[in-house]
């Protein structure tokens, strides 16, 4: 018998409406309010041992205290599963459901599942961390939706394979999993092309990227008074790779002094990038990081000053998260050094 704790807000916990939105968390024995739908969906498979309730405003206004108290209440009942909501389109409730599920999973190691409408802000905030079943905007189909939430929750408890977001009805978590299919990629590609040629809609097997556009920076202005830095993701390192920059999937970048150097001596530099043929940049590092020409421009007065530190990493199979972090860190250092412009060489 699977032990389940449910979480509901003041409204679905039958405490009252907006006038009760400030109530503090409590736990009552058994299934109360909307938790009764969860009990009904569980049938003989499990039992709702307690229902947690918390007012929407209390959870929204002091989230840390609210979540800490509710995690402690959940722990006290030693459940196998937490079912939060469903929150439908109720924003404060949805965020509380997502946050509580994430905290219970992470802090107690207890599986958690919730449900909400796609426009609930909690869906976007928590779908990566928490299984969130897609529901309608209101409680019109609550029992049916509770059944889907419970079905997914029981799979988590029993450590059964979770199906696709479409088949199990949850919001995609953004995690990829290799899955066997009957047809070869070639057969699928041919069918997809024939569909596209005949004007039928096709479903791409890779979600199309939604990268935010990077606005072009303003012009540097007077280059004769500018400080220009050289930055590369092409893998330049001093011989011996002192910072141990990874040849691919980098998490680190190096900062290399060029003060007093008119050019880069190929004997003192190496290249650890594993994503392109580095023969030519090893022969002459200026093909990647043009210190020689930059110094000439500096001497001629065409560029005010060359920044005396070159930043370098390897841009190959680097995760988006690490790329963004390293970019931010390098930008902050350049900003602190009053650099006006950057020549970024990529490969």
């Amino acid at each position, binding site marked *: 018998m699977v032990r389940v704790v449910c979480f509901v807000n003041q409204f679905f916990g039958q405490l009252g409406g907006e006038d009760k939105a400030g109530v503090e968390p409590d736990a009552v024995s058994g299934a109360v309010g909307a938790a009764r739908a969860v009990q009904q969906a569980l049938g003989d498979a499990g039992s709702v041992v307690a229902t947690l309730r918390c007012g929407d405003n209390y959870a929204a206004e002091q989230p840390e205290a609210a979540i800490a108290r509710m995690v402690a209440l959940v722990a006290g009942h030693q459940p196998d599963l937490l079912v939060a909501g469903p929150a439908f389109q109720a924003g404060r409730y949805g965020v509380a459901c997502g946050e509580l599920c994430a905290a219970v999973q992470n802090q107690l190691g207890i599986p958690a599942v919730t449900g909400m409408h796609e426009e609930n802000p909690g869906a976007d905030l928590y779908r990566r961390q928490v299984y969130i079943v897609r529901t309608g905007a209101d409680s019109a189909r609550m029992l049916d939706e509770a059944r889907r939430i419970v079905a997914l929750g029981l799979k988590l408890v029993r450590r059964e394979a979770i199906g696709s977001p479409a088949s199990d009805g949850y919001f995609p978590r953004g995690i990829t999993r290799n899955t066997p299919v*009957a047809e070869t990629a070639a057969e699928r590609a041919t069918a997809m092309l*024939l569909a596209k040629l005949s004007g039928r809609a096709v479903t791409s097997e890779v979600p199309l990227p939604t990268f935010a556009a990077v606005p072009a920076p303003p012009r540097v202005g007077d280059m004769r008074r500018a400080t220009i830095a050289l930055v590369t993701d092409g893998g330049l390192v001093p011989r011996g790779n002192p910072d141990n920059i990874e040849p691919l*999937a980098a998490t680190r970048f190096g900062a290399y002094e060029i003060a007093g150097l008119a050019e880069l001596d190929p004997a003192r530099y190496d290249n650890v990038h594993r994503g392109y043929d580095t023969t030519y940049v090893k022969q002459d590092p200026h093909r990647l990081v043009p210190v020689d020409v930059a110094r000439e421009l500096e001497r001629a007065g065409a560029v005010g000053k060359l920044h005396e530190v070159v930043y370098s990493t390897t841009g190959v199979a680097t995760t988006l998260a690490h790329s963004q972090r390293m970019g931010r860190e390098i930008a902050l250092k350049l900003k602190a050094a009053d650099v006006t412009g950057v020549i970024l060489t990529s490969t």
Partner: protein
Amino acid sequence: MRLTLEWSDVGEIRAAATTRFSESALEIDVDGLGAQLAEDSRLERVRIDLVHPGEPCRIGRVFDVFAPRAKVEGGPDFPGILGALDRAGSGRTRALAGVAVVVTDQEARSPATLALIDMSGPGAALTEFARCHHVVVSAWPAANAGRSEYLAATRLAGLKAAVHLARASADRAPDRVEVFDLPPPTRVPAALQHLPRVAYVFQIHSHQRPTGIDEGILYGDPVRRMLPTLVHPNEVLDGAVVRGFMGRNSTTHAIQNHRVIRALFAQHGQALWFAGVVLTVAQATEPERVRSAAMAAGLVADVLGADGAIFTKIGGGAPHVDMAQAAAWCEALGIKTTLVVEDMSTDGSSEGMLLFNFPGLDALVNVGGSQESLALPAVSRVVGADDLLPAFQGPLSTTYSSVCGAIEQTGASRLVAVVQ
């Protein structure tokens, strides 16, 4: 151009004094074949092992896999690489089903680049290579042989073995016959001119790792500065193209049985007209990349007159972008495209799956992600990787990229990376 593949089904393989068929069993003169392969002065010695489907066996250090083929009419075997230079793709070729030649690399030092084939268990479910018998050829380099000489000799040994085996079926009535018959792209019968014309753009190598002079890929040419090149699909199926030394996630076997070419032939004359194949390489520098993309698109649009094109890539991230750039150029010319991509994410997040974002490239098929972790159980027999015992016997904690044939970039993959 018309090519007939005359297939014999092999139900069993066993060592014997002569290489010949006995009913559906292929008897192999293992000692004689080994001695023949060892005649190459770049090799010190050669060992041959026989491996069977369902065996608790792991083949390690897999370098490449070859489909047994022997020409009986229409030119030499693997022209420019094994046989004299001639054209491939017409006449009759003997082919064996149910058996393959696996060649191992006894020199590779980095365990990260080693591929394996599990003949049973969960790893076997991921690759079609688990479902055929294998003649595993392991060769060790002669003292004076350099790395690329060793690999060239090893690959040649695999091709010789593939021809040797298929040759045994020459005086036998084939079990099945497959005909690939496609006229020049200009000669479409009037009754079929309404069909959409579809081209295939096949990236055969990535110059992320440049080829040496003995790394023949197209009719023996190392494709160093190859510009987009038109070929007949039969040439690809019949030994004109072999995989380079480091084709990540593809094999010569997959090229000999090319799934995209077969899928287009299967629909040819019915739902589409197969307009031809454009071979490309992924280039090392920006001007080369742009030139290649522009010319490939030009061949597809203005020479083949295609309405649609399928693209595949070989290798890692840069080839992924090369392919997309050529496809984007096609879309800009009004050609509909579908791309076969690998899930390129290194942390399992869906944001990292794709390395490009061009308008119009909205029809993407994926062959799975090679970085996903994979646990393989222990096996009782290891072939081709004696030096890695006992660790290689398992259990192994590895990734999908290590299973030869699982994440197959030219279209044979039966895995798909699904966003969950």
